[in-house]
Each structure stands twice: as structure tokens, then as C-alpha cells.
């Protein structure tokens, strides 16, 4: 795995080859994903314990949540994940404008997700449901808001990538940033898949 060539010094000083830079960025992002797994994992552990301890509270809490909104949001995120995956393939094949379009689709999905979440939250507050209501809703708000934070960060990352892409920074020989940004976005999707199951479905 060690570098075999020292000829291509990047202006940053030390990236040995574009291949190494690419695989390093990806490995870095995967490590970060491992971190995120354990970050949300803490919440999953809390969920598991209190779900087992207070099953009724969780059944009642779930009844307050809108399955329709939850399912819609799940599909929205799956579609966004799909479109950014398509985007990566597109830039790998040199379709720069297609990538821009697909990122816009992804960002729109993200925004739509956020709007839905906003309506969900305000409906809860309207019904007098707050994080302090009970442990289920504390978990609901903690999990979904932390996830929402990731959605926003992901959107920011993809937005920056889109700008750079429009400036023509990416090509079939340089698509590290779109791929790594997409990785992060998929993570957001995967976490939601579990949150959806845990919060909206399980009863």
C-alpha cells in the first residue's frame, strides 16, 4: 500500500499520487462514518433500554406521530440518496452538467425533508408535546433533531460541491469531493432508515 512514486508532489506538499489522495479521502470519510455510527449508536442504546422498560409509553408515543409524513420523508431521502449516487456515476463518466442537475435534485429533496420535519415539529408543539413530555418524545426530538442537523450539514457540503462543479473543478480524473460528499449524504439516509423504523413503525 505504500507509495511507490514520489514524483507527483501536489502543491499541498505531500499527496503522493491522485490515486492515494482519492483513497485517503474515502478512507477518512469512512472512518468518520464509523464515528457517526457510534454517535447515533448511543441514542439507539438509550432507545433499546427504554423501549424495553416502558413499552406502553412507546406505543402511545408512536400513535402521536404521523406515519404518512414519516413514510413520505423516507421515500424523499431514498430518492435523494439515489440521485446523488447517480451524480457520482455521472461525473465519473464526465457528465458535469448532469451532476449539477442531480445535486440540485438532492438538495431539493433535502429541503423538502426539512419542510416536512418543520410541519411535524410545529404540530407536536401545537399539541403540547415537547422533549420534556416523556422519554419517548425526548428520544424522538433528540434523534430527529440530531439527524436534521446532519441533513443541513450534508446539504451545505453538497451545495459547495455543486458550486465547484459548476466552475468545472471535477472531471473523470478528479471526482474525489463529489464521491466523499455523497458518502456523507448516504450516511444521513441510512440513519434515517433506522430512525424511521424505530420511531414510526415499531409498536
Amino acid at each position: 500500500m505504500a507509495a511507490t512514486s514520489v514524483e507527483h508532489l501536489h502543491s499541498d506538499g505531500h499527496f503522493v499520487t491522485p490515486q492515494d489522495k482519492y483513497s485517503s479521502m474515502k478512507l477518512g470519510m469512512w472512518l468518520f462514518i464509523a464515528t457517526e455510527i457510534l454517535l447515533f449508536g448511543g441514542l439507539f442504546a438509550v432507545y433499546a433500554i427504554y423501549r424495553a422498560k416502558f413499552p406502553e409509553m412507546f406505543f402511545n408515543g408512536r400513535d402521536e406521530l404521523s406515519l404518512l409524513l414519516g413514510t413520505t420523508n423516507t421515500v424523499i431521502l431514498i430518492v435523494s440518496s439515489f440521485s446523488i449516487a447517480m451524480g457520482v456515476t455521472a461525473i465519473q463518466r464526465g457528465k458535469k452538467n448532469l451532476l449539477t442537475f442531480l445535486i440540485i435534485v438532492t438538495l431539493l429533496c433535502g429541503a423538502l425533508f426539512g419542510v416536512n420535519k418543520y410541519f411535524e415539529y410545529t404540530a407536536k408543539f401545537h399539541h403540547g408535546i415537547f422533549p420534556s413530555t416523556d422519554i419517548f418524545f425526548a428520544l424522538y426530538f433528540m434523534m430527529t433533531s440530531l439527524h436534521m442537523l446532519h441533513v443541513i450539514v450534508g446539504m451545505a457540503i453538497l451545495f459547495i460541491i455543486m458550486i465547484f462543479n459548476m466552475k468545472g473543478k471535477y472531471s473523470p480524473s478528479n471526482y474525489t469531493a463529489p464521491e466523499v460528499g455523497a458518502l456523507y449524504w448516504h450516511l444521513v439516509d441510512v440513519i434515517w432508515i433506522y430512525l424511521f423504523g424505530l420511531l414510526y413503525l415499531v409498536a
Partner: protein
Amino acid sequence: MSTETHELGGHIVPYKDLVLVVTALVILTGITVFVSTLDFGYAALNIFIAMAIASVKACLVSLWFMHLKFEDVITWIFIIFSLVLLCLLIGFSLSDEFLRITPKVNF
């Protein structure tokens, strides 16, 4: 599913494969929502099915969308190790929570 290798060492997943995956994901979402409305008599069975389907979906996303299928072994090691740790965290704290021996009280 077929792939091409690229000069950076990355893999290109064809559009067709991605479309197949997303179709599967949407169908699985439909199934999991439908199943959640059924009553099997055991709440635990519902959780199990919902989590099993969620895991299948997560695998689909990570293997194809995230190209994990084509990553080298060290990535796999870290991801699997983090999942194992998560299971241990949940397993130990859950079992302590429920096996903790607390005395009967007669005030």
C-alpha cells in the same frame, strides 16, 4: 451487477444498477410500512421485522450507493468493528439494566 474500474482506482456503478437498488428500497419501504400495521401478537416480532428490513435497506445503500462493495479490507474492518462495538454497548447496558438484582422491598 457489473462495474467498471476507473483510473483513480474507484469503481463506476452503472445507472441501471442504481435504478434497481432504488426500486428495491422503495418496495422495501412499502413492505415495512405494511408489515408494521399487522398484529402478530408479539410486539417483539414487529421490531425484529422492522429492523431486519431496515438493515437490508442499509446494506443496499452502503454496498451500492456508497460503493462499500468495492472498498478495501481496512474500510470493512472499521465499519464492522464499529457495528460490533455498538452491539456490545447495547448488549451490556441492556443486560445490566434487566438482570440487575434488586431486592424485594417490604416497608
